């Protein structure tokens, strides 16, 4: 049987796949109305900084430590492999502070540490964004994609992925508590900007990386929407979690980190 015949059979067979019967419009509407009337009103929580649990930021600290490891790895690879014309990715060491002490006397210090940690992570994000912009400008001025530029892009993308994982980790932890702040909102927007810059760059010559950046674009866009509107809506959170899970974003990010570390011998 030839391909045309198979396509014809496919089209015919698809048309009556799970063919719906009559639509119970009124019954469904009645149930929708009943459900809406019965639904409890959930109060929207706004800034709950003072009651924010300290332990939640330990996960951000872990993510920050991963970025530090990534940065060291990237720095080593840049030193080994990059000609002088390609500047290495700037890496600022970040030290994750111990955050499990919940004593009231240490709360203010810990909050300050957390804000400082997020600030440093954002600084990394801005460095990555700046480097991606420099590379894009450099590529505009030259034809083709020299090997060192490809490597530089690759390293910038890896740095960006580490930062994205840290932000998503911080977001998930904060969202579970219904607590968002301006720093997280700004950070997510900065990462979205870098993601989109990289999506239109030579970094997407690698199909796997291209797909990962597309997935990240979607997830970070949803996070930006969520933190910007600040409604703490659990259904929106479900949608974001679904995107992260179904696209395997965290798994892919960690897989990329593992590959990176293996390649670098760390």
């Amino acid at each position: 049987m030839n391909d045309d015949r198979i396509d014809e059979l496919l089209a015919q067979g698809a048309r009556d796949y799970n063919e719906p019967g009559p639509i119970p419009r009124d019954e469904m509407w009645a149930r929708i109305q009943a459900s809406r009337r019965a639904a409890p009103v959930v109060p929207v929580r706004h800034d709950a900084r003072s009651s924010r649990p300290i332990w939640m930021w330990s996960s951000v600290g872990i993510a920050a430590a991963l970025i530090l490891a990534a940065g060291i790895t990237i720095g080593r690879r840049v030193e080994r492999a990059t000609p002088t014309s390609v500047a290495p990715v700037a890496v600022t060491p970040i030290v994750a502070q111990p955050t499990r002490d919940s004593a009231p006397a240490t709360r203010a210090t810990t909050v300050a540490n957390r804000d400082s940690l997020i600030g440093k992570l954002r600084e990394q994000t801005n460095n990555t964004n700046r480097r991606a912009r420099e590379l894009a400008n450099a590529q505009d001025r030259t034809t083709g994609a020299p090997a060192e530029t490809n490597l530089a892009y690759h390293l910038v993308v890896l740095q960006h992925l580490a930062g994205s994982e840290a932000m998503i980790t911080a977001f998930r932890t904060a969202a579970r508590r219904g607590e968002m702040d301006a720093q997280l909102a700004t950070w997510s927007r900065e990462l979205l900007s870098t993601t989109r810059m990289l999506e239109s760059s030579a970094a997407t010559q690698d199909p796997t990386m291209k797909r990962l950046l597309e997935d990240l674009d979607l997830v970070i866009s949803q996070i930006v929407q969520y933190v910007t509107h600040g409604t703490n809506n659990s259904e929106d959170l479900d949608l974001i979690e679904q995107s992260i899970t179904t696209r395997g974003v965290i798994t892919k990010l960690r897989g990329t980190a593992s590959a990176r570390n293996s390649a670098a011998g760390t």
Partner: protein
Amino acid sequence: MTDAADAQPNSQPHPRLFDRQLVARCLAQDALAERALYDAHVDRIYRLMYRMGGDADLAADFTQETFIRAFERLEQFRGDSSLATWLHTIAVSVALNGMRKVKRTQGRTETIDDVPSLAAEAFRFTGDLKARLHAAIDALSEKLRPVFVMHDVEGYTHEEIAGSLGIPVGTSKARLFDARAKLRIALAAFAGDHIA
């Protein structure tokens, strides 16, 4: 969306404007507007839910859940996409989550990506080409099946699918290509004997 389910009264100048007016009235607790919104979209949503779930009860549950969620978060509708696309985004999410719960409830331990092997098993005992095709569609992965069902079964455009699933248009096309390829393989393996 472009089919009859989205058809607007002739007096409405533009679908997006109609969407925004309708949403504004719903937000103002206008019961007639809420029913109008429901009536304008329920058929197409239900059909898709039925195609995805393959069961009238599931389709009704998914459809109800879609509209309940939509009314809850209607204030978040910005009009960047059409109301139909926005509703379909919710609907597809509800259906995929619902199907996962159904699979868990049924005690099935295989992942969605493992299903093709079970479908292949079923093929051995099924003599009907159409039934085989339907089993093969059921067995498509969670990424491929919604795209195939929306495009080839329900006639959505790639733009509509991309908007509903939150993926680029190119990804929608690629997934449809992959889905058709898998189904062709499933059919070809059987159809030679069946048709010859």
